[in-house]
């Protein structure tokens, strides 16, 4: 083979090999990779059951013509409720402090100021008064918590008759 032919052959083979390498090089073009993390989250809650054991007995609490006053920690006329949930779980309690009682077969109203005490055992005398807004406490080891519902109402100008109303309490796990 002459030098000219050798040089041409060498050039051709070099070009062939170079074209193959260029193909491989073109496949590798990615730069550095920043990243970011996104959190996916949810909060699972289980139900809390609320059972009315006894309603407030306003007529039993009346001792005069001016006012009815039921202290939840001592008065036998206090209503009783029980909450059932997860044993030992922490919970937040809120209740509507002031609600209207409406006379049955009429439209006259009385304003009732609720007062509530609570205890992990069914013992009214050792129960403690609860703040009406975002009180925190826990269920007992069997998943129970007891409430005594009392309060006061001014009846000095009340028209005689039956009065009814609601008591609203909200309990949620923390």
């Amino acid at each position, binding site marked *: *083979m002459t030098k000219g*032919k050798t040089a*041409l*052959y060498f050039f*051709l083979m070099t*070009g*062939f090999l170079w*074209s*193959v390498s*260029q*193909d491989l090089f*073109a*496949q590798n*073009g*990615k*730069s*550095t*990779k*920043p*990243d*970011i*993390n*996104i*959190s*996916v*989250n*949810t*909060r*699972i*809650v*289980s*139900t809390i059951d609320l059972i009315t054991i006894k309603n407030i007995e306003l007529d039993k609490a009346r001792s005069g013509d001016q006012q009815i006053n039921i202290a939840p920690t001592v008065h036998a006329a206090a209503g009783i409720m029980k909450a059932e949930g*997860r044993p030992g*779980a922490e919970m937040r309690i809120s209740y509507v402090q002031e609600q209207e009682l409406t006379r049955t077969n009429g439209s006259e109203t009385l304003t009732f100021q609720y007062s509530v005490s609570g205890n992990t055992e069914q013992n009214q005398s050792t129960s403690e008064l609860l703040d009406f807004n975002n009180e925190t406490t826990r269920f007992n080891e069997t998943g129970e918590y007891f409430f005594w519902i009392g309060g006061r109402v001014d009846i000095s100008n009340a028209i005689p008759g039956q009065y009814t109303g609601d008591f609203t309490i909200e309990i949620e*796990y923390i």
Partner: protein
Amino acid sequence: MSYRSAYLLLFLFVFGFSTFTPAQEINFGQFGNYSVTFNKFNNLSFGSILTGSGLKQIQLSDPEKATIQVSGAKNLDIILDITADPELLLNGNSSFSGDPQKSIPFTMEAAYANKGDNIISDAELFNVSSNSASARFQIVERTSGPPGPPPTPPHEGFTPPQGSAYIYIYGSINVGSVDAGSYTGNITITVTYN
């Protein structure tokens, strides 16, 4: 070797070269020091759910979806990879993986909008498989006409025109009779300039 053979080889070299050259694609991203930034508007939050309540979904149109802004040189392509955990775990504890009382299956969906604005009606869906997805697109889609000349790479005193694309992450969880508490999982988004 005769000259005839050499010319034959030259012929093969010239025309054979085209068989080794791929469809023309120039990765401009490797010719400049480009950067991409993220701005996370919010995480993906399913809120409070009652145990045992079954399927809970967050759609693309829901405000609870995660929205992430990706910003950079508007004319360059990015390759975006998304990978999500297959389940949410109680308190994020990895030892609860697969525990039917302490894990919640999660199915991810995702979309992106690259017309310059955070508008879900502009969104294109990712093809998600096994909670993973990948897509390649311009940060800001060219609206019409052929591609312009190659963009000037960033250098001292010059920053290429910037733009933003928006990534939307949403999906569903299936809540069995699991323990009450906080459940979390993780999604990773990786972006590469091409």
